[in-house]
């Protein structure tokens, strides 16, 4: 087991290195950016020759060196948390990330918890009550939730509950303290939008995986022992279904939340990682774009590591000892 964890960790570092290297090569090969053009423009207006200005810019970015030197610079910078300067914010990229992640986390975390708990609970109920009215209702909800485009759903909610009914603010304000009631109040709509689609997809997965075990022979054994329906459902249907669900969980939730995050933060004007990333792309603020892309990549890599370690605990038949 220890050897497996060590190997798995080594693989995590390797995967991270590969990701970073590919990112570097792509960045390095791409032509001068809009912000570079702007810089050159400014220098020319200040009386500098255009070619000199371009050289100055490239020098600042480290283009005077060989590709290998730039690569080493890039990797050392990443490792020492020197991720460059954001031209949009006039701040080190690390500071921008440090200031914005909490705004994403404050609604992504509750949405994740809500969607996993509710999604699994509804899915399990649907599986144990297959083809009942409640199951059909849950299925209808799931298909609706999956089909609704996030941006449209968010706008509709703002229109109905923000504009017409006035129950919720129509955009996010950073004036309230993060732990204040007002802040929780203004996060209701974003959380609803984000969790609706996530609940729907978790529910369908949970239903499908649990159905595998609803008619399993060991479930009959469990009933024959005299266990209650609740015990049978949780211990003998949900617990074995957890193994495949964990696989889906990390990838699926991550995708949903980060992709959903962009849309939601732009629509609700939440200054989180999504909005920062969106603006960085629009402004061609390359160091910041890179950083906002790498954060989810790191989370995905760590998430997969945790998921692989969970397997060995969840399913005793999986033994990585000899791999």
């Amino acid at each position, binding site marked *: 087991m220890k050897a497996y964890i060590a190997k798995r960790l080594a693989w995590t570092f390797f995967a991270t290195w590969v990701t970073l290297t590919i990112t570097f090569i792509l960045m390095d090969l791409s032509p001068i950016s809009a912000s570079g053009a702007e810089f050159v423009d400014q220098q020319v207006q200040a009386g500098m020759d255009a070619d000199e200005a371009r050289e100055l810019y490239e020098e600042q970015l480290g283009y005077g060196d060989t590709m290998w030197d730039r690569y080493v610079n890039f990797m050392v910078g990443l490792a020492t948390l020197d991720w460059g300067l954001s031209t949009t914010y006039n701040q080190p990229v690390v500071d921008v990330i440090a200031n914005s992640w909490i705004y994403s986390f404050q609604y992504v975390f509750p949405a994740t918890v809500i969607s996993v708990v509710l999604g699994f609970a509804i899915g399990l109920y649907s599986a144990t009550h297959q083809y009942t009215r409640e199951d059909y209702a849950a299925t209808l909800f799931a298909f609706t939730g999956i089909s609704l485009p996030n941006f449209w759903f968010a706008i509709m909610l703002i229109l109905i509950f923000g504009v017409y009914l006035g129950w919720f603010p129509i955009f996010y304000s950073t004036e309230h303290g993060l732990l204040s009631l007002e802040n929780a109040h203004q996060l209701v709509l974003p959380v609803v939008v984000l969790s609706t689609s996530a609940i729907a997809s978790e529910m369908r997965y949970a239903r499908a995986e649990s159905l595998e075990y609803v008619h399993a022979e060991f479930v009959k*054994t469990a009933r*024959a*022992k*005299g266990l209650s329906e609740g015990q049978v459902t949780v211990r003998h249907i949900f617990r*074995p279904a957890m193994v495949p669900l964990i696989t889906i969980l990390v990838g699926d939730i991550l995708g949903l939340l980060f992709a959903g995050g962009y849309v939601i933060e732009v629509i609700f004007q939440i200054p989180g990682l999504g909005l920062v990333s969106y603006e960085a792309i629009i402004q061609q603020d390359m160091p910041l774009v890179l950083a906002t892309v790498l954060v989810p990549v790191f989370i995905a890599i760590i998430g997969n590591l945790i998921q692989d370690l969970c397997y060995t605990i*969840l399913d*005793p038949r999986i033994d990585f000892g000899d791999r």
Partner: protein
Amino acid sequence: MTEQPLLSIRDLKTHFHTDDGVVKAVDGVSFDVHRGETVCIVGESGSGKSVTSESITQLIPMPPGEIVEGSVYYDGNDITTMTEDGVRSLRGSQIGHVFQNPQGALNPVYTVGYQIREAILSHRDVSKAEARELAVELLEEVGIPEAPTRVDDYPHEFSGGMKQRVVIAIALACDPEMLIADEPTTALDVTIEAQILDLFRHLQQELDMSIIFITHDLGVVAEIADRVVVMYAGKVMETGSVEKIFENPAHPYTKALLECLPGQAGLEPIPGALPSVTDPPNGCRFHDRCPYAIDMCRTGEQPPLHDLPGDHAVSCIHYEDGDGDLPELEDVDRMDAAIGGAR
């Protein structure tokens, strides 16, 4: 036998509501199981043996299954009128179950010790440590070597026969008075089958349990049964002591089954197939495949169980007067003609 039977099934009807219509899997079955005896239910696949056994403690999925009629008296109380909780308190504590496929009967993600403890803790007020000790004792009782260490192993670390022993240990966890074993040896190879049958015999002598043993293997019946219930297409064809059934079979179906046994006479298959369960034929369910069938067999209902001398009853019109025998094959047509003339 004058004492009250431990289990008494009366006119049990279990139907399944499916898209293709109502499947009458069990259609009016009655038999008794006395304390300390082994009753074998025999019949071919699809005859309703398993559904009968799972109807006793209502393990059939409901819906689509439904016990539409009849009673199951356990120790004098009708289980079919009990609440969900009432039935559950019987399962595992009074009535243990062993199923056909040991590969699937254990949950792969829990240790066998956990799965035995679960049965103990749901009916008995003991600590977890005590339950664990009981689990080790049970594993020893069913013949698992090195039980104190094996108790923490997972099902995939056991062979098929060993898994079935674990399933039996779970069934025995709360000292039940009755064990229902649904083809417990069918999925095992022959040497293991013999060991498991020995275990059943041994346990019954030791614990004085009643056993309902379901099988399609008459060889197993001969080895283990005190009494036999022969089922066909959801109905009981014949019941009786194991001696009566083997030495003096009355029903044509039982006779045909015995001729399917490998022996001196050579194998004799039963022509035809089971009748439709959604739309069973009139009269005797077996008439279509029965060489002794006369016109009377093809109308009305399945004949009632006629008592024969000794512990023996048969559902066949040829025994209407309480004894008698099947007619000679060449007489069958003549009988039809005679009755046809009277009609």
